[in-house]
């Protein structure tokens, strides 16, 4: 491509009642911030014509009511909102709502069955892995896969490991995992193929609560290492993987 700018925004049809708007490529905090800024603007400007909005790493999925707006009209409105966003200085309005969540994690092979292998594969000590995983703030790039599942990025280069060849069928709720440039907490028991390095006692999805999840795209997350005692006092379970 001779001019990278001309490729984005790119809007594609995603069914009879949805369009997908790409604002860039790959995992990039600036692109993700623009996605969130656009999400807010689209929600305010067109909310009564839409039935859902799903921001992700570099895209925004817009589900609309076919009785309220046509795809052509919607595309035109969205293009206008993207232009305004560019004029107003991209990420304005998105970052000020970002919340920092601190998540206490018990890092130990008993609840992090991939911790020792991760150390071997990365040629780091377990303490190094813990230090590197807790040292920096991560950004919530997307929420999905399962309720309350936040895709966090980006991991330090040295911690990057491929997904498991054979995903586990059952991972306990609260498991803290890494894969490629991403890290996440499994909010509920589920199958999964990421490398598990620890566990948190925090509830990230409670179907009985009013609030589905404390996190939203654009928020920041920092992990903090805690002892076995602290983990158990906070209600953490040491139940092992099946």
């Amino acid at each position, binding site marked *: 491509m001779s001019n990278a700018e001309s490729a984005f925004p790119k809007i594609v049809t*995603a069914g*009879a009642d949805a369009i997908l708007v790409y604002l860039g490529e790959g995992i990039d905090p600036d692109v993700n911030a623009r996605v969130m800024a656009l999400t807010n603007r689209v929600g305010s400007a067109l909310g009564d014509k839409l039935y859902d909005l*799903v921001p992700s790493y570099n895209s925004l999925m817009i589900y609309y009511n076919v*009785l309220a707006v046509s795809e052509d009209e919607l595309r035109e409105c969205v293009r206008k909102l993207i232009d305004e966003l560019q004029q107003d200085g991209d990420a304005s309005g998105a970052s000020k709502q970002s919340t920092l969540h601190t998540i206490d994690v018990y890092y130990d092979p008993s609840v992090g069955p991939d911790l020792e292998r991760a150390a071997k594969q990365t040629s780091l000590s377990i303490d190094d892995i813990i230090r590197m995983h807790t040292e920096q703030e991560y950004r919530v790039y997307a929420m999905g896969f399962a309720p309350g599942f936040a895709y966090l990025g980006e991991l330090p280069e040295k911690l990057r490991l491929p997904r498991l060849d054979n995903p586990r069928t059952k991972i306990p709720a609260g498991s803290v995992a890494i894969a490629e440039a991403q890290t996440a907490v499994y909010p509920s028991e589920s199958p999964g193929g990421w490398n598990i390095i620890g566990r948190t006692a925090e509830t990230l999805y409670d179907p009985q609560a009013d609030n589905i999840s404390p996190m939203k795209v654009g928020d920041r997350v920092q992990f903090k290492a805690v002892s076995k005692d602290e983990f158990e006092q906070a209600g953490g379970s040491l139940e092992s993987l099946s």
Partner: protein
Amino acid sequence: MIKILDAGMRTTVQDFGRFGYLSKGLTRGGPVDEQAFLWANRLLDNNFNAAQLEITLGGLEIEFQQDGCFALTGADADAHLDDEPLTLWQNFDVKAGQRLKVGYAKAGLRLYLAVQGGFQVEPKWHSCATVERDSVGGLSGDGSPLQSGDTLRFQCDTPQPSRRVSWAYRSDYTKTPVLGLIPGYQYDDFPMSAREAFCYKDFEVSKDSNRMGIRLAGKALATPKQGLVSEGINIGSVQVPSDGQPIIMMHDRQTLGGYPKLGVINPVDLGKLAQLQPGQKVRFSRVEASVAQQQLRRFYQFFNVRLPCQGGDNLRS
């Protein structure tokens, strides 16, 4: 009130679905055959969103503990009210003490049972749709299917004139359906051979299909580069993982995914796919988005479907 005497293979409470929470990872749920569901509500003059029972494969037996009116639509199965055989796609008056027994589906896979006024089930996040993988909805609120002994309340209303759905509006579930594909997403990135093969070649419904996705088996499709960054996936999306066997995402789908997608099945055709038994064949042909959109508008207007708005508070907690 009705009492479940035998819940059958799998019977769940469904309204039209849980809207507005995809950005938190919560999926929509709702009836996988929207057409059969909406007809049942229409036969009873119910709101389009009134809660019903989705009966997978059949085997349900219930007792009515009050007078009322009900309708049964969807898969072709033998049904009896006490000893009287029942016709599907029709409304019936029922007296307290009568028992409804639904046999196993002979053609099609899912039946819908509606009562006049709808079943009264406590909603969670604006819906009582049962979504097992999200642990939400249904009678117990935790996403579990109905069990024998469960009771469901409904408000008894005035008697109704007898009505039935004309044959012209009903699907023949024994036929091989041809479903519309609205090209979209990464369609242009797929090799021409895959685009051609998907439309006009037969696929078989695999037994690993469920309310999350319907897996198809056929000649493997060539795919573009795998490893997309996760993005929103609509109901009906045609995902093609690296093994080349398409998966069509249904109402309990995950909200984000990273497989390349050929496009999305025309929503007014999707119910036919939901009714296919494992081993049955299905075929696809391209449809213009504008045509599918016009069909969806007519469909929503006919059944009085009013989708909830995603207001200024665009990312609900």
